């Protein structure tokens, strides 16, 4: 899996390309760790080019969300292919992650405040 990183103001956008599974999820976790260590904790993942995800890939996403939340940051996702979105729905993770139609929607969205 390839990961492209760019800054969009306060938000760091990572565009993922390829498969997200056990082998490639480790690379994503490492990349997020580096960003958290630099206090870049408003992170967006554009999944448009992710053509395969399984439970190991979902596990990697849950792991990075926990890592970001520990730093009081925020993780958003966008551009899920219908097949990928379906897997989030089946596993109920669509309710756990903040998922947007487009990258721009995610970047400009206000944070949800929970009590």
């Amino acid at each position, binding site marked *: 899996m390839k990961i492209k990183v760019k800054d969009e103001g306060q938000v760091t956008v990572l565009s993922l390309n390829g*498969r997200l*599974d*056990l*082998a*490639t999820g*480790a690379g994503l976790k490492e990349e997020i760790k580096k960003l958290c260590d630099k206090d870049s904790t408003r992170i967006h993942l554009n999944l448009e080019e992710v053509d*395969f995800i*399984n*439970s*190991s890939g*979902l*596990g*990697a996403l*849950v*792991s990075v969300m*926990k890592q970001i939340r520990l730093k009081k940051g925020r993780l958003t996702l966008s551009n899920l292919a219908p*097949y990928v979105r379906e*897997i989030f729905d*089946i*596993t*109920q*993770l669509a*309710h*756990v992650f903040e998922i947007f139609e487009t990258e721009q929607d995610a970047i400009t969205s206000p944070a949800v405040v929970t009590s």
Partner: protein
Amino acid sequence: MTDSRSLEYPSTEESIEQMLDDLNVLLDDSHVTAEERNAFLLAVSEAFTNAIVHGNGLKPGKEVKLTLRIKENELSADILDEGQKGLEQIRQRKPSAPMDEGGRGIDLIEHYATAVGYMETDTGGLRVSIRVSRKTETCKENI
């Protein structure tokens, strides 16, 4: 007509990528629909990852055997590991909580497979058998 392949992989993370590459090549030659491909890839990848990680404990000296069959009306796979008590682990599994990092693989197999079976092998390993039905032209005509 059946296209059948038997493959063996060492229990490493790299084998998961290799298996997905091999399976994609096989499916490319089989004119499967995107829906059939996605369902089969996901179900097989979950069982294969479980075999590598939980069954064989990521020990490269242990192998995972994969048999794939492409038929006109179904795609099927058998995944065998060299672990112990895999069947017991399947029976005792608990539902995953939203923030759990694991525990969703079997649910996904059971969602995407038309049928799935679990058996203990003679040596105590786990055999997972997966079937995904195909919508053949004949079937579509009968609907």
